[in-house]
């Protein structure tokens, strides 16, 4: 579960004191936290992202190779979790069970 997925940085912004950014993972987009690469990345760069946190910058070639390798290995579970969150949302739950 610790492999992380490389993606391309689409945008960077301030999220209440934390550097946040939109990352494109082979077509799936998701906001992630860049606090641990603050000052080291720009839009258009590639980063390895694990559970919503960018942990290292990589070059484009390495990002592509790694993404393909993960795909071959079916080690892209994190993308499924992203989709699940996108589907169910993080808003208020409707009712409180009795």
């Amino acid at each position, binding site marked *: *579960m*610790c*492999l*992380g997925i490389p993606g391309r940085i689409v945008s960077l912004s301030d999220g209440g004191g*934390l550097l946040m950014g939109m990352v494109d993972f082979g077509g799936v987009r*998701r906001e*992630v*936290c860049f*606090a*641990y*690469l*603050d000052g080291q990345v720009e839009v258009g760069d590639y980063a*390895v992202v*694990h*559970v*919503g*946190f960018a*942990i*290292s910058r*990589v070059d484009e070639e*390495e990002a592509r*190779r*790694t993404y393909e*390798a993960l795909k071959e*290995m*079916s*080690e892209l*579970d*994190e993308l*499924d*979790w*992203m989709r*699940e*969150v996108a589907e*169910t949302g*993080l*808003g*208020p*739950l409707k009712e*409180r*069970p*009795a």
Partner: protein
Amino acid sequence: MKYLDEYRDPQLARTLVARIKEESSRPWVMMEVCGGQTHTIVRQGIGEALSGSVEMIHGPGCPVCVTPLEQIDRALHLASRPEVIFTSFGDMLRVPGSECDLQQIRARGGEVRVVYSPLDALELARNNPDREVVFFAVGFETTAPANAMAVWRARELGVENFSVLVSHVTVPPAMVAILESPDNRVQAFLAAGHVCTVMGWTEYLPLAERYRVPIVVTGFEPLDILEGILMAVRQLESGRYEVENQYVRSVTRQGNLPAQDLVSRVFHLVDRQWRGIGMIPSSGLGLREPFAAHDAERKFALEGITADEPSVCRAGDVLRGRIKPNECGAFGKACTPERPLGAPMVSSEGACAAYYNFKRFPAPDPRAADVAAARAL
């Protein structure tokens, strides 16, 4: 060697395999401690390719698999409480507890939510102030910075209804536990690349020195692994025991310093139980005192929940390299990925599931298991 043709660069793979075989003057025993590497090694048949030269033992490299039964039972207890929204990474949902798993709790009406980032769980807590949101904080050093940040932010933003059930483990103490066990056979380690992306590799220096064991930081792709193994063989053949870095594409000497810094502000080292292995001193992370309000174990008084691991599961022997997964009597029969008895059968990175999924290993006859058990004694 049919699997070699599937490599990105089959020619290079062949050359590396040939070199490893040529340069090994005797059979060497190595251990990888990374679920991603285990997956690749089993899937690509690297063990068979190197048979006679290098034996790979699949160590406790999957955080999902080593999360102790007790912590799973605590998670199940919390997830069953009506006021709790229990949040977790997706790969924990099918890990068997004593009675059931998180997925079953969800089916029975428990509020169990898969999150991608621990910050998702925090967001959920902010949006549901009348509910208790608990996040299952598991993982190795690679995941700790993310989980540390969620706790840090919760305190900063005063999100009182957010807490974490922590089951973090760290890799080097597990390596020490393996090296110190009386029947240890491991002569060299491949260290986990992505763990070192965060941590760097200097913490392995005293380990290599004290136990005179070569440690090669290695990536998870097939060619990475073959290269890492060759580097380790060369050290063994020349009597060196150093820390070397095969995975320079991702790992620097110092690692990610801001991440290490926040982890050490939020967490401190604690003794931690490893499923199948038992207690390893100072091998886990627990919340520091200033974050006690976000500690689910204290908030919900969970100390009373303890568990004994089922004796039929031989995960401990598998993770210590005493037996191969298919030498466990339950392998492929009572225990399958659909109905796992033990955690290493749950995750695709667990040694048992990796063996099962790549099907090249028949379940042994009972005598073979006995022979293996006798060998382990």
